[in-house]
């Protein structure tokens, strides 16, 4: 693997110069704005003090926000486990047609914009939603039997929808890697299957399960769109609180900044605990080999009925909301029954100004694409230059600085840029740039994570040869290194694009008249209960995101196959969909999954090519 070339002082100078570009960018677009937030939250009349934090913490409302945030995150993690563990088992143990498809399906929540999930939940689980209408018609009831919307459980269920597949992936991956001999030994020694499961298998899986729980807990703590759209006034999280104080409620930037600092602290603590836990768990992972895969449809055990009892509700929870969104986008509601229509699509592709989304719908679609393209381009440039710097200069401090945006939640990032765009130098830019910068900062760490290991795995002799033949460093990079990284860069770009398309948190903080993206337009349509328009926009958004995810998958897997750089034991094609290690958490809540300075370096290609590589490495 490429060692850090430090022989020539000229090289080091070039490295320092190279480091200036990302440092300058991060300084203007990230550290300075973040400094504004810290000053606003921690300074009173130019004096540093904890008064604002104390005042916030002694406000019963803020305390409730914090408690509710933790409560719903814990419940969401447990429910995700309950829904996801059986799915993981199912995928590991049984062989059935469509297994690969179902397994690929577990990545869908990562690329599904969370606002579309919220919309789907309203349409599907609402009192007059599809599920209740169906049940009332079948059972002849006068009252809707499912009353989950407008309660805490709407938020929890939507989070479980997102994160059960995360748990399933963790469990599946751990199980397939687990050594089957202890279980076989236990069975040989006379243990019944259930006993063997509880005494042998479960302890083996426990680290993965705990890792998954911790990850889901972090994701749900920092979730924004779902509590915003489904929680009403009574169920708001800290992240929603920052937004409400900055843009909605009793507008108060100092209180918003104080809350932002609290949520920053919370996310740092959780990230630390999570990484610490993840490190411990992964150390206990060992063994090779695959669990036996039993054909599903030849068994005539009662377990089949049990699976149906699980699969049916799971299918309802997973597919119902999405199907409801797509169905609703093609239906015109009428008293006698809905009729098919393309009206909503004509409406959302209209160039006419819509006061309720403070943009024209068509412009919102266009802005999403332009912002996505801009953020993708910038994050690739930034990601490549950060990777280049970190290859040359192996410094933990520098790595922490260059990857710092990972530790900051999107809503805090949004607040920082909101403040920064009101003063020079950033105030010279249009409002759309704030969103582009926010998305760039959110996305580029994933680009770095994707590209660095690939770059490390590259034979250093090739660009060296180009240099020896007289090419300048830039030419050598452009003509040799970049083409060799090729598919990996393309895949990272497609992933960045998908992430930007679905992101709503930063947009909620930064949107304004004429500066509107698809997810936020869906939120506004949902707020004014224009369900048809919201559904049509959501269907377009899901389609575009799916297209980007598909491109990401293709680019990733084709590259992996051609290059064989993945040292993974599993076939590359199967790993490719998640080859970027950390899930984006539904396009907005991000995993702070970067190894901390103290952690192991992701220096092998294994961790890049495998989902959640860090946890199982």
């Amino acid at each position, binding site marked *: 693997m490429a060692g850090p070339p430090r022989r020539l002082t000229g090289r080091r100078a070039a490295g320092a110069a190279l480091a200036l570009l990302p440092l300058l960018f991060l300084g203007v677009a990230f550290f300075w704005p973040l400094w504004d937030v810290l000053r606003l939250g921690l300074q009173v009349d130019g004096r540093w003090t904890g008064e604002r934090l104390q005042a916030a913490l002694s406000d019963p409302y803020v305390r409730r926000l914090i408690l509710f945030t933790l409560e719903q995150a814990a419940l969401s993690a447990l429910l995700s486990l309950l829904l996801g563990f059986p799915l993981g088992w199912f995928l590991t143990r049984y062989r059935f047609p469509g297994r690969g498809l179902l397994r690929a399906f577990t990545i869908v929540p990562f690329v599904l914009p969370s606002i579309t999930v919220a919309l789907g939940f309203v349409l599907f689980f609402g009192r007059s939603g599809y599920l209740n209408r169906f049940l009332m018609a079948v059972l002849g009831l006068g009252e809707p039997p499912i009353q989950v919307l407008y309660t805490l459980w709407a938020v929890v269920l939507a989070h479980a929808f997102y994160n059960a597949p995360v748990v399933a992936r963790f469990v599946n991956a751990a199980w397939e890697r687990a050594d089957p001999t202890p279980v076989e030994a236990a069975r040989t020694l006379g243990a019944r299957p259930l006993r063997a499961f509880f005494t042998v298998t479960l302890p083996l899986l426990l680290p993965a399960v705990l890792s998954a729980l911790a990850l889901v807990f972090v994701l749900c703590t920092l979730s924004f769109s779902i509590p915003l759209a489904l929680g009403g006034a009574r169920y708001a999280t800290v992240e929603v609180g920052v937004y409400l104080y900055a843009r909605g409620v009793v507008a108060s930037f100092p209180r918003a900044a104080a809350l932002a600092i609290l949520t920053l602290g919370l996310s740092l603590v959780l990230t630390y605990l999570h990484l610490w836990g993840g490190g411990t768990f992964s150390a206990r992972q060992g063994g090779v080999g695959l669990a036996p895969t039993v054909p599903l449809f030849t068994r005539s055990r009662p377990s089949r009925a049990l699976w149906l009892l699980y699969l049916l509700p799971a299918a309802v929870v997973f597919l119902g909301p999405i199907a409801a969104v797509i169905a609703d986008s093609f239906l015109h509601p009428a008293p006698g029954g809905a009729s098919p229509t393309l009206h909503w699509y004509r409406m959302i592709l209209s160039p006419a100004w819509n*006061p309720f989304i403070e943009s024209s719908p068509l412009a919102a679609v266009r802005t999403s694409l332009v912002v996505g393209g801009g953020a993708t381009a910038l994050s690739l440039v930034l990601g490549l230059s950060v990777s280049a710097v970190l290859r040359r200069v192996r410094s933990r401090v520098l790595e922490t600085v260059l990857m710092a945006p990972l530790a900051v939640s999107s809503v805090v990032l949004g607040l920082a840029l909101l403040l920064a765009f009101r003063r020079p130098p950033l105030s010279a830019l*249009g409002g*759309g740039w704030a969103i582009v910068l926010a998305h760039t900062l959110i996305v580029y760490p994933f680009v770095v994570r994707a590209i660095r290991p690939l770059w490390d795995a590259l034979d250093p002799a090739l660009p060296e040869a180009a240099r020896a033949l007289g090419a300048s460093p830039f030419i050598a990079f452009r003509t040799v290194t970049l083409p060799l990284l090729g598919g990996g860069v393309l895949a990272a770009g497609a992933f960045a694009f998908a992430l930007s398309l679905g992101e709503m948190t930063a947009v909620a903080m930064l949107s304004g008249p004429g500066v509107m993206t698809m997810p936020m337009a869906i939120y506004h349509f949902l707020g004014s209960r224009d369900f048809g328009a919201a559904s049509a926009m959501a269907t377009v958004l899901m389609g575009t995101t799916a297209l980007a995810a598909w491109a990401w998958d293709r680019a990733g897997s084709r590259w992996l196959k051609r290059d064989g750089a993945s040292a993974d034991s599993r076939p590359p094609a199967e790993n490719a969909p998640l080859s970027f290690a950390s899930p984006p958490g539904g396009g907005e809540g991000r995993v702070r999954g970067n190894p901390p300075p103290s952690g192991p370096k992701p220096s092998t290609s294994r961790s890049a090519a495998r989902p959640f590589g860090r946890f199982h490495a």
Partner: protein
Amino acid sequence: MRKLIGFVAALALTTSAVAAEQFVVYASRSFVRWGPAAAIEQAFEAAHPGVDLVWVAPAGAAEMLSRLIAELSTGRTDADVFLGITAGSLPRALAEGLFRPFDPDLIPNLAFVPDDLRVDPSGHVLPFDHGYIAFVASPALAEDLLPRSFADLLRPELRGKIILQDPRTSETGLAFLLWTVAHFGEDWPEYWRALLPNLLTITRGWTEAFAMFEAGEAPLVLSYSTDAAYAYLTVGEAKYRVLTLDGEGYRLIEGLGIVRTTRRPELAHAFIDIVLSPEIQALIPTSQWMFPVHSGVELVPDFARLAVVPEHPVFLDPGEVAEHLDDWISQWQALLGG
């Protein structure tokens, strides 16, 4: 590089949606959805060729007002006029210095607005309509469950059957908070605590609350005393029942003001004069479903017959509101957890 330039150009296109020749009005979502916004736009653009009137109304009035405050506190807003402020938010708006004083000479139609509707003696905010907050019941609610008093709203049979609005983001919701303060005095938090189980949800704005009510999500909603007239005049039957509580209804006067930072004050005055014109005011009752402020406008007979005027209109003194509102909101937030 060519791509980058193309991208910059494209971004410039999207961000220049609000250009110089546009006149921007921040309004409540309900006004643009229901009220005579289209007619105002038409009249305004006819009188001022080359100016494009742009409504921005993605949220309830109180939320839009907070947004204006947030934007002005850091220097920049697109808004020229704000429409939808009520007496509850007025002290906050004045304290923040959101509006510039209007010049009565530039608003000839102001002469037709009765003095008792002019809520702002300081001359920053003008009324454009008024009405009363009341509860409205759908036919789904049994006759014997119709609440006639504050106590009736607490009946256990109404569990999960009421939709309210958030007083932090909706002027309607704020009016109900003030109403309970006016009715119960210092004991209002106890009443709210008892009321919480009966709430289906607290929405951000009136628009989604009323849409949920119309979709049948709940049979009771906090709305306006004119909703029976609305139902009668739109679907031909008085299907909604307007319910005053203990004979009370909270008095709501909606106003508009010229944003401090506008560069087009003469257009702003012209806009206000159009809103107050008899042609637009005549549209208020049957579109915005409120009472007009223009004294020369005759009410449609059915509207006059069905719009309920409460026996005891309630209105909290603006001075008291100015003094205590922050406390009340904090207390309200704190009791949300139940």
